[in-house]
Each structure stands twice: as structure tokens, then as C-alpha cells.
């Protein structure tokens, strides 16, 4: 068995068990495996990254969930929407004289006699959903691979099943340990007579499974990810991850859940009851990786971003935005800076680096023309975008903050539960005079807090919990929005109505790359430059007493973004001057 590694793709659990047995036979006490790996993760790491197996792993989404074999290796990209706490399970147990492991599975692979020695380990449960407000173009690539994969699978389906059969039979005598993991009909032969009748029958009825799978809403396939051996601080709510692990999906298990006895019902009355395995697939995670916005681009990153290249992209993007904004160059400049903004640090309550933009001077008509065009353009440029039409009815009815529902013990998501780097457009032109009820007032407060501090209060009924967020906010309004005070207020002055030509994907990709990559550029400022800026600020304040720390803060944020927009990590005097010029033009319009 040494020479033949398991098919990591189709039978990852086999590989897990193999490494476990190896580790045990080499004399390690299974008790020491609590909270650490015995070599299985290394095996997968090697398979996925060194041998390039990652590209072969199917990505789990609403389309292919019904095609992916249970107990095979899958990949899931999602945002941690809720954390369901820890789960204790029998990590290792003694079956007769041999140690077995249950790590990475839901159901004991072997009957566990009540007298067997057991080791209880724990794992964390995360409820993950596809990143909210994700634009369709980010998924295009997945869909492609999925489709390919799916085609391969369907074409090979019969054949593959056959091979597994053979394999199982082949190994049955030599390794008593293997057959359970196939997760396909052969194992029932042996198990039926024994202790797992119903379970095996269910898995045997693989063919009938398709009809039982509930239809997943477009782009809303949730996944319950079980994470092993991980420090608490590594994962945060609203983080986006790429998980690779064993996929399990047992629609049949649900049937029994309802009938379990009263006592366990009472105690287990938690989130899991409301997330039966029949509705939500499980993923036992081997490897996870935190994703940033840039991971959602599918063009290979430009390897050597030369300043020249960056400048070129900047110019073309600026041109594009100017066209969309009806030849308003100042607005286009502000828009570029806005799209590059990101919270870099937090000092006390101040979120440094954010730059929310308020384009004023919209009327109903111009909002419908330019607003929509801009919305579309932004959707094409950024991976995660969402827009909120701000009306009194919406404010009075929407639940925009996540809320804990103690009946189901779940965090109910809200509009403002967004991944880092999401773009939010708020259209205030539709807001009419009206009365806000208590929900409306609360919602306005939430939006304002988000604007000012980049924080959202999650409602835990008995208390509020503040969660930090990093959302770029763009507001369209008629006059300066007083409900939502933006950092940068700019009266919008379109001069021409230009048709928005469709850009080629290559250009689009370059822009996307530009916006996502330059956003996280490091930044520094030379002491001389610091001095120069300080002098400028002091002079400006001496000249105009109405300038305050907020204005200065905005200038510096703009300076940073301006220099980032040229792909430079060090602020130069030239860029500082550009910011001042931009600010001057802006003030002119305001005045």
C-alpha cells in the first residue's frame, strides 16, 4: 500500500486514514493527535500545491452541488457568515485493538462499541455563504471550470463508478480498512449485514438522491465548514476564505433528526437543527486560505507592474470614468481615488484611509442615466458591489444590520454584513419626505455609523456588538447628504452625454487588476515631504480658519490614494500638488 497513494480527489478520507495508520504504527500515541495533524494535511498540501492538484478540485457552487460525489475533495469559496461554536466528536477510538479515526467525517466509519476506548476532540463550525454582493463576472471563471469538470464527470460517470467498484473489491481482502470510504454502493455489500444498515442503505440509494436535493437559490449555496486544529484568532467573522476539504451531503440523515428523543432535542436545540445536512452541505476542511479582493480576479496577475504600464491603465480608466460621468473630469478623478480607498488602520474610533464620496447635484433624471451607468461600470470593475436605493419605505422596513435570532440560534444576515472591500452605492435621490419609524431611525443611524467609523452594530438583542468593516461608500444625492455625511462631497457637473461603449475584456481585466492591486499598496512618506505637508496644512489653516482636522485628514487620505493610483508607494510633491489642485477645483464647485 505504500507505493499507491490514495486518490486524493475522489477518496480523500482514504488518504486521511492511511496517514493515520502510518502514524499509529510508527508508534505515536493517538492521544497526542488531539489538536494537531499527523501528516494528512501535509499530504494534501503537497498534492494541492506542489503537484498542482488544486486546479483539479471542483469548486462547490449551487450548480454542481448535485453532481459532486459525497466524500470527495471539493473547494468552497465563501464568507464566514456565522460561527456556530465548537463541536466535540470522537476523534479516535479503539476498534478491537486497532485505533481508528473519525477526523474529517460526520459519521463514525466503524461501529463504535460502547466499551471501546475513545478520544474526544473538538472542531469548529463555521457557517459560510458565497460572498454577498459578488458580481457575476467573478464567478464566470468558476462556472467555466465547473462546466468542464461537470462535463468530464458526466462523461466518465459510469466508468468511474465501475472503477471504484473494482478498487473496492481489490482492496477488500488486503485492507479491511478501505471499503468504508468509498461512499458508494460497494460498501453496502459488506456493511448491510452488520451494524450500519440504514445508513448504508441510504448511501446505496445514491441514484435517488438527486430528487431529494433541494433547489439552491442562485448564488446562495451555504456551506457548513468544519475546521480542525485552528487557533481562534485565525478566523474572523466576515472574512472570505477558500476552503479545501471533504464534501459530505447526506439528505437522508435529516429524516431521523426529527425523531430523536426529547432530551437530546432539548439540549441540541441549536443552530444545527435548523441546518439539517439535507439542506446545507458540509465541508471538512483540510486547508483554508484567506482571500482578498484580488483573489477574485481571474486574469493572471501582471507580473511586473512597471510604472509606465500602471500609468497607462490609470489614464485609460480615467478616460472611461470621465466618459461615463458625462465628461466631468474632476468627478472621474475623485472616483478613481474613491475606488482605491481602503481602511488602513484604526486609531481610536477613526478609520484611517477611507474615502466615501458624495456626488451631489443629481436630479431624478440624471440619477437614472448617470447613476445607472456608473453603477454598471462599478459592477464591472469591482468584485463585490451592492447598491441601496434609499427610500423611506426601504429604511422603515429593511433589516440592514445582522441580527441574532435566539430561536434558531443563528446570526441572521443583513444588508450591511459585507466582506472587506465591498463597494456600496446609496442612491439618495429617491428619498422623499416622510416619517421614519423606529426601524428607519435605527437604519439611518447604522448607515451613518458605517460612513463615519466604518463600523456596524450587530444586534444581539440583549446588547449590540460592534463589528469593524471596510466598505467603500458612494452616494448620489440632490444636495449634500446630511443623513450620510461623506468624506468627499462633490457637485456633479456632467457636460455631455456620451454613449458608454463596451470595453473589451482585456481592458476590463487590466482595470480590475489595477483597482484591486493598487488598493493595498504600502505607503510611506519621507521626512522632508512630511515637513512640506505640515507647512502646507498650517498655511492653509492660517488662511482659512474653517478648515479642520477632518479636512486635513481627507487631504492626506487623498494624497495617499493619489500616489497609489500611480502605483507609487512614496508620496511625492507632485502628487500632493495634484491633490491640492483637485481639492481647489472641488471647492470652487462647492462655493
Amino acid at each position, binding site marked *: 500500500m505504500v507505493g499507491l497513494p490514495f486518490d486524493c480527489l475522489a477518496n480523500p478520507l482514504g488518504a486521511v486514514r492511511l496517514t493515520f495508520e502510518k502514524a499509529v504504527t510508527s508508534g505515536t500515541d493517538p492521544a497526542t493527535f488531539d489538536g494537531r495533524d499527523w501528516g494528512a494535511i501535509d499530504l494534501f498540501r503537497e498534492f494541492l500545491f506542489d503537484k498542482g492538484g488544486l486546479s483539479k478540485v471542483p469548486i462547490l457552487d449551487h450548480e454542481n452541488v448535485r453532481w459532486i460525489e459525497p466524500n470527495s475533495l471539493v473547494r468552497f469559496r465563501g464568507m464566514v457568515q456565522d460561527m456556530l461554536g465548537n463541536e466535540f466528536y470522537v476523534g479516535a477510538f479503539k476498534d478491537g485493538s486497532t485505533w481508528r479515526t473519525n477526523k474529517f467525517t460526520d459519521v463514525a466509519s466503524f461501529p463504535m462499541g460502547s466499551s471501546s476506548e475513545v478520544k474526544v476532540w473538538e472542531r469548529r463550525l463555521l457557517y459560510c455563504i458565497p460572498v454577498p454582493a459578488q458580481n457575476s463576472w467573478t464567478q464566470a471563471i468558476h462556472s467555466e471550470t465547473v462546466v468542464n469538470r461537470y462535463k468530464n464527470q458526466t462523461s466518465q460517470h459510469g466508468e468511474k463508478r465501475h472503477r471504484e467498484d473494482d478498487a473496492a473489491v481489490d482492496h477488500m481482502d488486503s485492507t479491511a480498512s478501505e471499503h468504508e470510504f468509498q461512499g458508494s454502493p460497494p460498501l453496502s455489500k459488506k456493511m448491510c449485514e452488520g*451494524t450500519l444498515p440504514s445508513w448504508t442503505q441510504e448511501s446505496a440509494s445514491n441514484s435517488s438522491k438527486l430528487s431529494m436535493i433541494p433547489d439552491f437559490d442562485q448564488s446562495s449555496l451555504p456551506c457548513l465548514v468544519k475546521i480542525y486544529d485552528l487557533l481562534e484568532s485565525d478566523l474572523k467573522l466576515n472574512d472570505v476564505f477558500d476552503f479545501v476539504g471533504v464534501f459530505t451531503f447526506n439528505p437522508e440523515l435529516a429524516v431521523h433528526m426529527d425523531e430523536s428523543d426529547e432530551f437530546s432535542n432539548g439540549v441540541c436545540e441549536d443552530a444545527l437543527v435548523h441546518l439539517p445536512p439535507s439542506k446545507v452541505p458540509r465541508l471538512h476542511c483540510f486547508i483554508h486560505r484567506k482571500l482578498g479582493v484580488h483573489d477574485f480576479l481571474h486574469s493572471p496577475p501582471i507580473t511586473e507592474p512597471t510604472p509606465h504600464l500602471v500609468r497607462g491603465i490609470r489614464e485609460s480608466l480615467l478616460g472611461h470614468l470621465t466618459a461615463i460621468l458625462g465628461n466631468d473630469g474632476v468627478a472621474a478623478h475623485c472616483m478613481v481615488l474613491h475606488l482605491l480607498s481602503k481602511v488602513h488602520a484604526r486609531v481610536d474610533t477613526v478609520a484611517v484611509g477611507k474615502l466615501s464620496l458624495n456626488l451631489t447635484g443629481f436630479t431624478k433624471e440624471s440619477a437614472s442615466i448617470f447613476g445607472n451607468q456608473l453603477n454598471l461600470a462599478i459592477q464591472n470593475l469591482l468584485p463585490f458591489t451592492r447598491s441601496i436605493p434609499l427610500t423611506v419605505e426601504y429604511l422603515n422596513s429593511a433589516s440592514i444590520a445582522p441580527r441574532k435570532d435566539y430561536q434558531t440560534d443563528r446570526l441572521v444576515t443583513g444588508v450591511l454584513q459585507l466582506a472587506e472591500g465591498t463597494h456600496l452605492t446609496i442612491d439618495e435621490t429617491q428619498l422623499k419626505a416622510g416619517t421614519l419609524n423606529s426601524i428607519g431611525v435605527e437604519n439611518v443611524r447604522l448607515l451613518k455609523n458605517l460612513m463615519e467609523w466604518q463600523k456596524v452594530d450587530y444586534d444581539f438583542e*440583549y446588547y449590540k456588538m460592534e463589528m469593524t468593516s471596510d466598505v467603500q461608500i458612494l452616494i448620489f444625492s440632490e444636495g449634500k447628504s446630511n443623513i450620510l455625511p461623506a468624506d468627499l462631497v462633490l457637485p456633479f457637473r456632467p457636460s455631455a452625454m456620451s454613449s458608454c461603449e463596451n470595453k473589451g475584456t482585456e481592458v476590463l481585466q487590466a482595470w480590475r487588476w489595477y483597482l484591486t492591486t493598487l488598493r493595498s499598496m504600502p505607503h510611506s512618506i519621507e521626512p522632508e515631504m512630511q515637513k512640506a505637508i505640515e507647512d502646507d496644512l498650517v498655511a492653509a489653516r*492660517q488662511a482659512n480658519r474653517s478648515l479642520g482636522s477632518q479636512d*486635513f485628514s481627507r487631504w492626506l487620505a487623498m494624497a495617499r490614494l493619489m500616489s497609489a493610483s500611480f502605483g507609487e508607494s512614496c508620496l511625492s510633491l507632485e502628487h500632493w500638488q495634484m491633490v491640492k489642485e483637485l481639492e481647489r477645483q472641488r471647492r470652487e464647485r462647492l462655493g
Partner: protein
Amino acid sequence: MASDSSPIHNGGPSSPDDSYSSPIDNTFSSPGDANSRRRRRRSSTASGYATPPPQHSRFAATDATPTPSSTQSRRGRRAARATPVATPTSTDEAPPSSEGGEGDEHDEAPPMFVWGTNISVQDVNAAILRFLRHFRDHPSQAEGKYMRAIHHILEVEGESLDVDAHDVFDYDSDLYNKMVRYPLEVLAIFDIVLMDMASRIKPLFEKHIQARIFNLKTSTSMRNLNPSDIEKMVSVKGMIIRCSSIIPEIREAIFRCLICGYYSDPIVVDRGRINEPTRCERQECLAKNSMTLVHNRCRFADKQIVRLQETPDEIPEGGTPHTVSLLMHDKLVDAGKPGDRVEATGIYRAMSVRVGPTQRTVKSLFKTYIDCLHLKKTDKSRMQAEDPMELENGSGDKDEDAPLDYQDKVEQLKELAKQPDIYERLTRSLAPNIWELDDVKKGLLCQLFGGNALKLLSGASFRGDINILLVGDPGTSKSQLLQYIHKLSPRGIYTSGRGSSAVGLTAYVTKDPETGETVLESGALVLSDRGICCIDEFDKMSDNARSMLHEVMEQQTVSIAKAGIIASLNARTSVLACANPSGSRYNPRLSVIDNIHLPPTLLSRFDLIYLILDKADEQTDRRLAKHIVALHFENPESLEQDVLDISTLTAYVSYARRHIRPELSDEAAEELTRGYVEMRRRGNFPGSSKKVITATARQIESLIRLSEALARIRFSQWVEKRDVEEAFRLLEVALQQSATDHSTGTIDMDLITTGVSASERMRRENLLLATRNIIMEKMQLGGSSTRLLELLEELKKQSSGEVHMNDLRNALATLAGEGFVVVHGDSIKRI
């Protein structure tokens, strides 16, 4: 076994005492009776094994504990059999160590050990007995603490003995460790010992007494409960979020034969199951499948499942709260309700989940819960008695920690208070990213701490709250200060004058849309009772609304007479208002009154009125510029200053408000009198053209409040002289800023009906004169300009007293107003 004592028969929430007087009780033996009688009967026949193992009676019986059940029952049996062996008399005088009892064991039965350990049952038994008999709170007490408690329980026919785990630890740490590590076994023995003692003291006492352990040495965070804690005694803190309905759990079942009417013996639950007899036991009948459950003769116990969630302060950043289930039995049912903060002590248990009810196969999962032994409500009143709405204030929650943490915290705060520079340090910590304005911050600090409210026997009351008004140019971070105070204060309400109506601030009467009843709704001021009501844009407030404030600010009540409701509501709130000058920027040529269109009657109700003017000071601007540049381009962490974080600050303030009630020392009272008299006298300053009312009773009240607040800042029980002096200084600084007539450069008391030094005015006039003279002497008409500093030097040479830059500036401003000089930044030119 011994612990199976629930006396509640019908599963309802009736108290045990009720059930004793109920007629049913006569018909059916009380469960505890039945159990103990049976126990005694059986132990007398030396067949202890027949008693139900303790786990199955005291703790929810499930056969799915991770430890194989066979061993458990064996354990239980051993523990049970140990009872007659370890007679208290034999070990009575043994030294207080559980190992010490070894000598006795030879005489008795062979030593028994708790399964899988080297803990001897007899030892534990003896140790518990010693503990109960001999533990004393204080050596002087004649009788042990728990002996008294047991006697008390026997008297009131109670059923549980609360045992402080700290006591156990102090008396016998070895026993404590055993108890925490093997709670199932040790508690079973504990209960047996208690039973024996009870029956010895009062032979006829037939109820069970359970030991309820609480106050463990260490409390586990819910987040850190892990598999190694299973079957251990743990203590977790949290907030109850949900209580299930009460579940009657069957403990003993009685069956009746449908054919002959024969009643079976009570059948006790065995591992969560009742074995239904398949045939009638009466020899004459023996009918098969005829037995039916007689519900109202069965014995039920109450059970409830409670979800406990982590308190917000334990949740790490970016995490969601963890929850754990608590299983409550009998008396503990309904001991807490959702929203309560509790500390639960219990045994952490795990139960495996089955794939299906009919299958023996289990999923490899465990559900965990805590078998609750004791539930203690965390006392909220300790720090937040005044601030019951502290919940919103996350930082305040830390104060509700266990006594130990709480004590630590208090010690820390006291330590902090001892620092000589605490006043300055707190000032620095208040809104650290707002520059300068130190005197304003000091005033705000006083407002946060507040003075003592006084209620005389005659019914007159004096408010302790300090009201502050900030007036100033836009962009001078007034609103930020307000926001900051709002966040800090225990019960702050933040409102904007523009949107507030009189009723919105005070209270209003509405009709309930559903019932049509009239309801009194509280406004912002009432809601911030005992807090600070922050009113932004005070000047934009309608006159009507403002006039409502008169009553609130002095009488601290809101009176309503409307729609048949006549009420007076408490509004003991400090008002922190900020206003913009009427012409967007402060016009120094106009008086304060003209600048802010507020009636003097209202103004006089503010203890401190600060003018925050935007001074064209390059130094300040540079600091601001430096700060902002650093904020954006340097590592923000390096900006940290020596300031208290907001949670410490909140804790400090709430502790002081709650616990420190400073009183005036004689010395301070004298100083107050002296200062006040002087202030009054200044109004009669000879030579002043008109007599000004300088100080009124309001001022002295303000001063007392301020000095009390200052004493509180130092956690001092006495208001000392220096507090009074600082209070005078604060008041003068505030008045100097607000009561200066900028057209003359003097303070004029008539601006605000109250006043400060006419002597100050004299001083200023003298200074003005001196300045004028110097300028006349040194400077040519239309000649070259002189620098401000030079002028100051010159002045200092001439006059005997101290001359401040500010005084000079004021004087020059007056001169400029007269058209005598022109002031350009730093340089002065005569024209």
C-alpha cells in the same frame, strides 16, 4: 442515589412546601422518603448494589456519556457501599488531610477506590465529614459554618446545602481538587455524608439534602471549554438567552393492570428508560400486555434547558459569542430568566448523538451541556446601581465580573487614584485626539463625576449635576467632545437641538394605537435621568423647547399636565449643550448674549460656560498638522500616549460616582466662604462705576458641586482646600472666557447675570492703560511695527504683577477696537 431528592410530584412549578401540605402527599410517599427508606432498607440487608447509581438519579440519565456506562454503575455501587464503612465516628478526629485517614482503613473494609483513579472512597468520605464538621469562617466561632447551615436546613426542611468551593479549598485543597476533577463521584459521597449527618441529628428527617457547590476557584471562559473538561466541575459566566419551558421528567412510574386493577410497584427510571412490565405481577392475574401507565401516580421532576451565552466582553474581535446549554433540575428551574447575567457551576457533560432513535450506532458527535449545580446571578448593582442601562456600554460590563476580578479592578482603580497626577492624567485621557482645550476638558471631567445631590428633610433638594455650555466657532470639535462624553457617560442621550421639540426632550402623552389608552412617553431628558444629556446645536432649539429646560436644569424634574395625566418625572440629568454663535462665527465685538441668542435666565443655569474660540495660533495648527500627518503615514500604534483607555475611564467614573461621597472639610468650607465673600465684595469694588452682582447663591452651589467632583476624581472622601481652589479657578476660567466683554476687553458681570471679579476688570484696565502708555511712548504713529513679545517684556518690566500673553492680547484687542493700533498676527502697528 442519595441525591435523588426532588420533592416535586406533579411536575408543576409548585414549591416543595406546597406539596407537603397537599393531600396528595399523604397518599403517596414523598420521593425523597421513598428513596431513602428504600436505601436504608437495602443497606441494612447489605445489598447496597440495588440502589440506583448516583449518576442516574442526580444527573440526567443517559447512557450516552462517553465513559462506558458499565464502569459508571460500578462506580456508583462502590460509592454506595462505602457508606456504612466510613462511619463518621471512626474518622472524626483524624487530621485534616484526606490521606490522613489511612490508618483507620485497616480496621474497616478493604479500601475502595474511585474507578480508574487512586482516590479512596473512604478518604474522601472522611475528608468531607471533617470539612463539614470543622470548617469555620472564623476561628472564634463555636460551631462550624456548615454545621450551622445543616441545622438550619433541617429546621426549615430545606433540601440543598450551598457549599462555597473557596471554603473547601481553604480547608482541604486536596478534597477540592478531587471534587473538581471527579465531581460525579465526590458529590455522590458528599450527599451520602450529608444524609448520614442529617439522620444522625434528626433521625426522623427523611428529606434529601444535596450539596450545591458554587464559587469555584477558577472560572472557565465558555470559549475555552474543551474535551478535557468533560466530566469535570466547571464554572462559566454568561448571559441567559433562552429558557425552555419546564419539562416534567418521569422519575418513578406506576402501572396498573387493565384487567384486574392491580398497581405495580413504583418503577424507577433506569438510564433514561422505564421498563414497562409486560405482564401483570399478581399471581392470580398474570395477564400479558395489560399494564398501563397511571400518570397521576407517577413521580415527575422538573427539568429545564437554559441557553447561556458569552457576555460581550469575552468575545474576541471578529468573533461571535459562544453558547452552552445548561440543564437545570428541580429547584434551579426558573432560577434565571433571559437577559440575566449569571455564573453557573456544574458538571460539563457530553452526550453522543445517534443517527436514529432505533439504532445503537452513534454519530461520532457529542452534544455538550452543563449539568447545573448552582446558579448565581451576577450582582449588577455593584457598580451600576445608578446605571441600570449600562448594557449598551460594552466597557461597563467588565465591572460585573466575579468578586475576585471585581476586587482586582477596584484595587487597580484605587491604585490609579493614588497617583498624584491623576487629575491631569484623566484630563489627558478625555478625548485624547482633541487638542488643547484642557480647561474645558477639566470642566467636562467634573461634569462626568458630578457633585453630591442633596435632599434636605424639608423637601428642598439641591442638584449634584453640573451643567455645561460650550459656545464656539464651528470646527472647534465641540461636537466631537459631545460625542465623546456621550459615549463615556453611564446613561447618555445625544440629541440635536434642531430636531428636538419640547415634548421630545421632556415627556409626552400619546395614545396607544392598539388599546387607545393614553401613555406617557419619556423624552431625552427623562431618559438620561442620572446621566448626561448632550444637546448639540443648542442655539437652533426652539424657544418653546428651551423654556422647558428651565425646570429640568434647576429642579431636576419634568412636570406634565396633559390629557388627564399630571405627573412629575425625575430628570436628574446633567446637561451638556453646545451652541454655535448666531452669526456662524463668534463676533468678538458683540457680547456673549448677542453671540448666542439665549435668554440669560437659562444661561445662568449653566455652571460653566466655555467659549471655544478658534485662535489663529500657528503652534496649535502645527501640532494638528503633525498629528494628522503621523496618523496617515506612520504606524498609528506608535501614536499611543500615556492615557487611560476608555473602559478604564468608564470604570473609574462609575466607581467614583457610586462609591465616593465626598464631604466638605472645615478647611474647604472656610475657603469657600472666604472666596465667596471676596467675590461678592469685588462687586462693590470702590471706584467701579456701577455696582455689579458678582456672585449669587447659584455660584456657590456650582462651586460646591465642582469641588465635590474634584474630590471624587481623587477618590477622596473629603473635599479639601485645593479642590475648592481648583473649583474657583475653573469657574473663573470659564467666566473669563464667557463673560468678557470683548468690546472693552473687560469682564462685565452684566453680560451674564452672575459675575466674577470687578478687580479683574480693574487689573485689566490698568493693563490696558499701561499698554496704551507703552505704545504711546515707544511707537510712532504709522511707524514700524513692534512684536508682541517685545511689548510683553516691556510690560513685565513696568508692572509689578504678572502679565500674561492673553491679557495683553485682550488689551490690544480693545485698543484695536478703539482704532488705536492694528494687530496683525504677532506684530502691532500704531495708527
